[in-house]
């Protein structure tokens, strides 16, 4: 450029103070309360799983960066670490380490890097990894253990949602008490059990505006309305909407997974459809599907239509007519 007085640059011209690592580390901090509660409830098993997923995810990311000749510093942007944390938090506490490692490798390799790395992936990488091992090792992925704080002496243990679905917990009156669901004193995936810990993390993200508030609100709204209708019609058979919100992976999914910036829509209207769709599908799967829990498949399914939503609900250009002739 021959010493021009003007700087010529393509858009964007406004830049936010936020950077990828800054956003990512905010999310990691927001995840920490739930991480700590899971370590409290599941002790060494939790620590080992987190460690295995972190090492496997970072190693896979590093190998791909090396093969694809990309700058190594993006290894430390926090995105692979978030994938590792989220994956570990959605695993059964008693899962053997080799399965966790397979899940981590798939999450980074097939979930993220084959599409071109951060920003190009269609699906939430952690959920891709989880879906893979869920389908590959269905028995191991649905074998649960009670938290050490419960002092029960059984080898296996049902999750609150599993109880609801397969043991008719509402009819039997054995539904997990809401207090346990709030604190996390129950069976389930590592990081999903404690609603309070997840709410604390969500507050951090919402006040920092790291996540789009419409997504969790839409998901929770749709699920509450859907399960609420059935509960009103027959409270002796169906669980309350509050139970459905607090049990299982709904909160971690709504606050930390569906809100992934890369795989969620960019326009408000698209976002509403995306979020309501997830909530509705979770309700459908939990009430009528073959699985006890449906958060993972709902988010992955709605991920697939995000490009379509982005294209259909493009904001109008200033002055553009509502209906072009």
């Amino acid at each position, binding site marked *: 450029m021959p010493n021009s007085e003007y700087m010529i640059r393509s858009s964007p011209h406004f830049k936010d103070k936020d950077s990828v690592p800054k956003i990512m580390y905010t999310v990691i901090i927001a995840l920490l309360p739930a991480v700590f509660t899971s370590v409290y409830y599941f002790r060494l098993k939790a620590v080992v799983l987190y460690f295995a997923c972190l090492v496997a995810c970072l190693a896979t990311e590093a190998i791909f960066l090396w093969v694809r000749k990309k700058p190594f510093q993006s290894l430390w942007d926090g995105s692979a670490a978030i994938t590792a944390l989220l994956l570990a938090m959605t695993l059964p506490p008693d899962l053997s380490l080799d399965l966790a490692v*397979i899940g981590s490798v798939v999450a980074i390799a097939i979930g993220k890097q*084959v599409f071109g790395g951060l920003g190009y992936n269609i699906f939430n990488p952690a959920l891709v990894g989880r879906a893979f091992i869920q*389908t*590959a*090792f*269905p028995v*191991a992925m649905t074998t649960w253990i009670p938290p050490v704080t419960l002092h029960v002496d059984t080898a296996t243990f049902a999750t609150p949602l599993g109880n609801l679905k397969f043991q008719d917990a509402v009819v039997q009156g054995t539904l997990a008490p809401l207090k346990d669901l709030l604190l996390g004193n129950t069976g389930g995936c590592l990081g999903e059990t404690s609603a309070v810990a997840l709410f604390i993390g969500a507050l951090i993200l919402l006040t920092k505006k790291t996540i789009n508030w419409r997504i969790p609100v839409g998901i929770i709204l749709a699920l509450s309305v859907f399960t609420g209708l059935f509960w009103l019609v027959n409270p002796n058979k169906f669980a309350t909407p509050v139970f459905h919100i607090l049990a299982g992976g709904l909160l971690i999914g709504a606050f930390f997974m569906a809100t992934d910036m890369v795989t969620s829509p960019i326009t408000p209207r698209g976002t509403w459809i995306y979020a309501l769709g997830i909530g509705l599908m979770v309700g459908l799967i939990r009430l009528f599907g073959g699985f006890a829990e449906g958060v993972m498949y709902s988010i992955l399914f709605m991920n697939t239509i995000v490009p379509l939503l982005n294209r259909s609900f493009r904001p109008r250009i200033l002055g553009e007519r509502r209906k072009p002739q």
Partner: protein
Amino acid sequence: MTTKTIRAEYLKGLWDENPVLRQLLGLCPTLAVTGTVITGLAMGLATTFVLILSSLVVSSIKKLIPAQVRIATYIVVIASFVTIADQFLKAFFYPISEALGPYVPLIVVNCIILGRQEAFSSRNSIGRSLIDALGMSTGFLLALLVLSSIREILGAGTFLGYQVMGPWFKPWIIMILPAGAFITLGILLGIALKIESKTKRS
């Protein structure tokens, strides 16, 4: 026909024009019956039989067929050989025929076969058509073998039914499900493209 062209005619089916990995033809059986090596092998051999005989017949009667009814004629020829293959498997390899289910009759609509008649046998000599059909079916068979080996070893820990993985191995059930077929094929296609772009550049 010189030896060199025979070689080239045969070899193109193995890699440069591999029906599965390069032309992306015949993907339905490729995905559906590669859960075990034995079914993949049986499908590959049945397709080989149909492709070679159809190519022979089509190339020998090509001058007699009016252009307007050529596709109909090819289909009748192909369907006859497919029915023969299907009956043969049912009579002599009943368990395999059961495992392949509707996919043997569906060879009729395998694009590789009709595609080779339309693109090759209908305009080349009997000898060349035979070499082409041999090359294409070998390419198809090899692709199915690779795919089904990966899927059976990872998905069941066995190869042709024999245990090859130690007791420590936990079978990846997803690999024998449709999802495993898509993932494996996707990875294979990616690798094939990568190799292709490397060799083209050098």
